[in-house]
């Protein structure tokens, strides 16, 4: 087996050194009958070529985003990732290293984590950020728990514009922890009254912007109302590129900003791995979940970086930790940091403008399709339309024609009853031809 260096001679010699007659002697503590006499009933070892054949055959059965006009978003976005990003993250020293528990020989990882934290803090308009969470949805769940700790209250209010998967993640956590939750109904028109839902027991209000329907939300009125009741505002951003153009949640007064960082540096990969962003105010730093990287000096006085404030974490605090999280999204943070470095502030601004322009153009074209009603007037790169009939059937039909047209809202929340809503995203990857193809297919199918 190509990955195993020991030869039969090595094994025999080593067993003699250890003082056992056979490998089974080392499994002597396994209770009677549980030690398998033969390998489980699965195929045996295969050559690299054979594995490549098997998996390539599976890969070839899928319709890839890059091969068709593509408008699917709703929490994961296809952007162009420069070639240098993928090259750099495959450097052995990044790819095959561990959590930087020995900082003297992990300055590479720690250095980029410090850069990542700074980039996230600046992008979101916040004071501090952690070294990442699993993804945007779990980061949102953690943010709610953090708000409960900070306010010592247990009731969260979730906007009806929050991605339904995120709602379900928070609801699961909340039910299991026996906290209270108020979830507002799906809000495609942006008319919900979040402020009315805030009361003296509210620990936090969770608002997504742009929301799952693509609508940009002005957080300032909610922030003012929440703060007046002693509650925190958690802003959720699932499209990180929007931060290049839209007022940051931090500037609008949010107390915690969480997000999905996939858009910067990371591919779609059918939903994961992604990178959860988590930013907060300095005064709440000891209530934050997850790893934090901090600056210090070494014995020679040279600047260096370490993981810090670890007493918040499970490996020290155990049952009193701020979270049970251990793993972060190291390599995905690295991809984010490299892509963000290549962009720079000006590049991000331009990328965001291109995204927005493509969406504005898409909106204009959609407005010309008879029977289609556009519900989103204030947006970044995504919008919701109402179609005659079921949106999922329409998407299925267009997929048959080689167009991936968007996400039917029922795919996310079938129980909500918005069968006719379709969410479409248009990033920099879309061309005029793509948008023209989509619109003409709509016209034909809806005629």
């Amino acid at each position: 087996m190509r990955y195993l260096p020991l030869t039969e001679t090595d094994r025999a010699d080593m067993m003699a050194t250890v003082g056992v007659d056979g490998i089974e002697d080392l499994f002597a503590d396994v209770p009677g009958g549980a030690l398998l006499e033969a390998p489980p009933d699965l195929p045996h070892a295969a050559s690299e070529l054979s594995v490549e054949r098997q998996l390539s055959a599976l890969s070839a059965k899928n319709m890839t985003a890059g091969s068709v006009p593509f408008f699917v978003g709703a929490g994961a976005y296809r952007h162009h990732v420069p070639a240098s990003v993928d090259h750099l993250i495959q450097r052995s020293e990044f790819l095959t290293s561990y959590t930087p528990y020995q900082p003297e020989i992990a300055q590479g990882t720690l250095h980029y984590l410090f850069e990542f934290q700074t980039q996230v803090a600046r992008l979101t308009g916040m004071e501090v950020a952690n070294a990442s969470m699993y993804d945007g949805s779990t980061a949102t769940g953690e943010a709610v728990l953090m708000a409960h700790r900070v306010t010592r209250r247990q009731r969260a209010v979730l906007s009806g514009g929050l991605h339904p998967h995120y709602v379900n993640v928070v609801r699961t956590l909340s039910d299991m922890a026996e906290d209270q939750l108020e979830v507002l109904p799906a809000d495609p028109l942006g008319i919900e009254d979040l402020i009315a839902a805030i009361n003296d027991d509210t620990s936090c209000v969770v608002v997504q912007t742009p929301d799952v329907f693509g609508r940009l939300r002005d957080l300032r009125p909610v922030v003012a109302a929440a703060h007046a009741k002693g509650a925190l505002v958690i802003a959720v951003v699932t499209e990180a590129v929007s931060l290049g153009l839209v007022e940051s949640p931090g500037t609008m007064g949010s107390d915690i900003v969480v997000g999905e960082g996939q858009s910067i540096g990371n591919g779609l990969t059918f939903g994961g791995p992604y990178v959860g962003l988590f930013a907060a105010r300095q005064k709440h730093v000891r209530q934050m979940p997850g790893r934090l990287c901090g600056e210090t000096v070494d014995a020679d006085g040279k600047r260096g970086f370490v993981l810090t404030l670890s007493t918040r974490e499970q490996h020290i605090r155990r049952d009193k930790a701020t979270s049970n999280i251990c793993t972060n999204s190291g390599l995905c943070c690295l991809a984010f940091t490299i892509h963000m470095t290549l962009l720079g502030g000006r590049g991000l601004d331009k990328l965001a403008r291109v995204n927005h322009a493509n969406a504005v153009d898409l909106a204009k074209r959609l407005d010309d399709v008879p029977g289609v009603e556009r519900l989103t007037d204030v947006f970044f790169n995504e919008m919701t339309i109402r179609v005659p009939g079921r949106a999922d059937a329409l998407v299925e039909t267009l997929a048959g024609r080689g167009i991936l047209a968007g996400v039917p809202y029922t795919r996310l929340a079938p129980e909500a009853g918005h069968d006719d809503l379709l969410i479409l995203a248009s990033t920099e990857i879309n061309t005029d031809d793509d948008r023209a193809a989509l619109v003409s297919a709509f016209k034909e199918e809806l005629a």
Partner: protein
Amino acid sequence: MTLRFTKDHEWLAIDGDIATVGITEHAQEQLGDVVFVELPEIGKEVSQGGEAAVVESVKAASEVYAPVSGAITEVNNVLTDEPATVNQDAQGAGWFFKMKLSNAGELDGLMDQTAYDAFVGEQA
């Protein structure tokens, strides 16, 4: 002023019905560099053995227990900015909080300096 110690390595100096509480020199040595101290709220009622404060080093977080029952009357805010004070002067400037005793009888169960020194000696 009477000095008493607990088996959990807190010391308390009793002056009338007010006790000043901290962690012992031995405890600070074991803990290593103190980097953060979380102090109780003034007015908080604590019972003997209950959690009253938290002291953190880089690699550990430890609860500081109330050596006796009572109400917190004062906390040492110096520790918030200068947690190293606990290492420098654990049984002096590094005190954690003062409390008003609600049951002086609880003092009888605590150790004096000689007994505590012997206790630490046994544990080593």
